[in-house]
């Protein structure tokens, strides 16, 4: 691949004249490949945006990648009116599951990770390895047995059925342990102990603030993972009222033959995506540092 060469040429070559030309060609090549993939990524999202503005009649008859009559506001109104306004309820449910689940799981992960990093006790390595083993079996595969268990204890079709499994994040414990191990100095803990602080106080007042960058990452990971979850709520919830927006929209997609218009589903999908995209753009640097901690360490 020649596209990467300019890096070297520019640094190594002596003659600035030759340098500029080859570098220009190289840059163009790099740009072309990157722009091509950007198009591949963007076109479906662009289609979603454009189609969300169309009346159902124009969906089949106009160019899918360009606007025709701008009916976005009507579509949005229709989305929120369909089935007595259940869409707002779904968004609220998603927000509840995601905020609540992520907040609790981040706290639990921080406590567990801190304990694994900073206390020597028998069985520590075994505990950690069991938690890591769980990372290698995706949670989707626990969904069905969990459903069978929950139906025995009558938790199925309640908020708890979706909330409880989402507060457990083995990956969160892993990240917390790595981060606590690397960033919370033992000397600081020891100093706090000498000052007479209890273990709980040390954790909340000393360790937690230092660990906060990792905790933000864990929160975000868990938030998105709960927001995106589909199979678990699909299994656990019968009632429309309890569903998150993912399950609700998939039902609308399925309900095309029962008279749910296409444009409702498409505009609904578009609306449900906006909060996450905004969150991503705002919080992206946390993601990167979190991913880096997970992969490079």
């Amino acid at each position, binding site marked *: 691949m020649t596209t990467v060469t300019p890096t*070297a040429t520019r640094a190594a070559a002596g003659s600035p004249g030759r340098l500029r030309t080859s570098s220009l060609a190289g840059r163009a090549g790099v740009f072309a490949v990157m722009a091509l993939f950007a198009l591949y990524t963007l076109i479906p999202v662009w289609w979603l945006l454009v189609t969300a503005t169309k009346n159902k009649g124009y969906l089949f008859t106009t160019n899918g990648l360009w606007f025709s009559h701008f009916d976005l506001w009507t579509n949005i109104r229709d989305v929120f009116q369909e089935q007595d306004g259940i869409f707002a309820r779904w968004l609220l449910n998603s927000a509840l599951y995601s905020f609540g689940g992520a907040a609790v799981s981040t706290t639990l992960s921080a406590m567990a990770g801190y304990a694994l990093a900073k206390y020597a006790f028998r069985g520590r390595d075994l505990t950690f390895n069991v938690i890591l083993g769980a990372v290698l079996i995706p949670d989707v595969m626990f969904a069905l047995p969990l459903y069978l268990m929950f139906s025995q204890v009558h938790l199925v079709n309640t908020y708890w059925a979706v909330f409880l499994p989402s507060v457990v994040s083995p*990956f969160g414990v892993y990240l917390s342990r790595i981060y606590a191990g690397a960033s919370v100095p033992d000397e600081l803990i020891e100093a706090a102990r000498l000052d007479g602080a209890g273990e709980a106080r040390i954790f909340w007042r000393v360790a937690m603030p230092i660990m906060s960058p990792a905790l933000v990452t864990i929160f975000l990971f868990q938030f998105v993972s709960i927001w995106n979850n589909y199979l678990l709520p699909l299994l656990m919830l019968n009632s429309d009222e309890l569903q998150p927006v993912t399950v609700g929209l998939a039902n609308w997609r399925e309900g095309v033959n029962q008279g749910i218009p296409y444009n409702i589903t498409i505009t609904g999908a578009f609306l449900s995506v906006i909060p996450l995209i905004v969150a991503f753009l705002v919080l992206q640097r946390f993601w990167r540092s979190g991913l880096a901690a997970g992969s490079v360490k």
Partner: protein
Amino acid sequence: MATRTPGDALAHPIAGSAAKRIPGRGHTRSAVLFLAPFGLLFTAMLLAPIGYAVYQSFFRTHRSGLGLGPSTTVFAGFDNYVTALHDSRFMSSFLRVFTLGIVQVPVMLGLALLLALLLDSRGAVFKKVFRQIYFLPYALPGVIAAIMWSFLYAPSVSPFTAALRHVGLEVNFLSDDLVLASIGNMMTWAWTGFNMLIIYSALQAIPGELTEAAVMDGCSGWRVAWHVKIPAVRPALILTTVFSIIGTAQLFNEPAVLSQVAPTVSPTYTPILATQQSADINNYNYAATQSVILALLTFVLSFGFLKFTQRKGTFA
């Protein structure tokens, strides 16, 4: 689809490294208190379901008469497992997903690596914008992306079908021949950027002196990438491969949504779909058996890959 979570630590166990520096002893009680809330929920939400599924898989519901009489649960030993291994639909769901993974994962990771290297090269412009664009699909919930693609593939709506028809090609993305590739495309679209970002983060962590030294020695950019950068991001590549194996094994959203518009996608198209199908017809013991087989196989594949790359590894 649930988020893939890094399992990288198995490749780099840090166990023991911190143990020597632990100040003070006798904090076992505090440690247990800190671990208890997570430990209890972990046991209830992850360990117990595994145990329960394994237990269930050894039983069978026996219905007397025409299924109208009371049903009794009888011990079945490995019968359910034997049935599953002879279940042609279940086995072909494995084969289908395996075929998909063998092709899709290398394509996706190759692309992710290429994009990460390009983004890391000094010739790149608009780095920040491109990075955000590539990561964008990760913000779309899997099932929402699947709904979107189900329209993008549907012959009556698809702008792609329309464009291809314009140049005289009649393509149905949901046809028998193409639907698996179409699903592969959905996965590639959704996850390349995520993987790219992990690899890119690893590239950024390479000390500048390392690449500069190689350049001084007269290495071209491509050779620097091949001999310095790619070996250095090996752990990230292993990590993303493990993510991808796990992600492919739990393939559900895409075929579940496509099955509404593509008759070729059967209710037992992937192992997870097959498992759910068994649960839907109240064959819980069989569904549990299928879950156990699937979880075991995924674990063996991802853990096996980790071990294999660790043993071969010169860098990690």
